[in-house]
């Protein structure tokens, strides 16, 4: 599994990896964008909340299957299920009073067609999935 330093500055590499993966899968632009957004938000979370901006590594791997494209992140930060931070935007609350945490996870999970998280042998493993056909 290719590894990158777990830092915000290195996340362009994730974007580049996702771009190449989406191209290989022939994803239309809107789906490629959804996968990139979700990957960016979840990788940012691993850097900021998982490693708490201390040194670490982020494994990135992906593949193309008949029906979907998958992308997997692996890290050995503290146990961290991104869904724990999920908050639905408070649409009824005026923006001036709105709490603004949890938005990244909300965007990521909304953008994806599938998401799983596992803690295996001291590692956090997140798998992101986007369908290749059907509605955009």
């Amino acid at each position, binding site marked *: 599994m290719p590894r990158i330093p777990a830092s915000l500055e290195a996340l362009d590499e994730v974007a580049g990896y996702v771009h190449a993966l989406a191209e290989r899968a022939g994803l239309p632009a809107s789906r490629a964008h959804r996968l990139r957004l979700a990957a960016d938000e979840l990788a940012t979370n691993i850097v900021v909340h998982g490693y708490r901006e201390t040194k670490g590594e982020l494994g990135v791997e992906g593949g193309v299957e008949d029906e979907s494209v998958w992308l997997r992140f692996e890290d050995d930060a503290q146990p961290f299920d991104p869904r724990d931070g999920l908050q639905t935007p408070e649409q009824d609350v005026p*923006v001036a009073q709105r709490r603004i945490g949890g938005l990244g996870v909300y965007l990521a999970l909304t953008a994806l067609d599938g998401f799983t998280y596992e803690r295996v042998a001291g590692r956090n493993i997140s798998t992101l999935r986007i369908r290749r056909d059907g509605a955009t």
Partner: protein
Amino acid sequence: MAFTATLSTDADIATIYLAGELDASTAPDFHEAIDDAAATGAGRLVIQAADLTYIASAGLRALVFARQKLGDDIVIVITGATEPVIRVIRMAGLDRSFEMTSS
């Protein structure tokens, strides 16, 4: 990825021109431009987004910060946003919080 946030003022209008990708690593620059725009005391903030190719939640948080910092009396207009940017603003339910125009 390259990102720039450039502030200019003309009469009572402050304009922030955004270009590139607005994510967690570049949002502090936008944040700073919003602080500077607020300090001008302009009655209207225009965010030119035609050359903004990507926005992540960190960028949305900066927009919410702008709304909270400037208060309700100051109009914030986002102009020329591209499809990927509009989509994310909508996903977050923020499209009703800002005036959005096509150019």
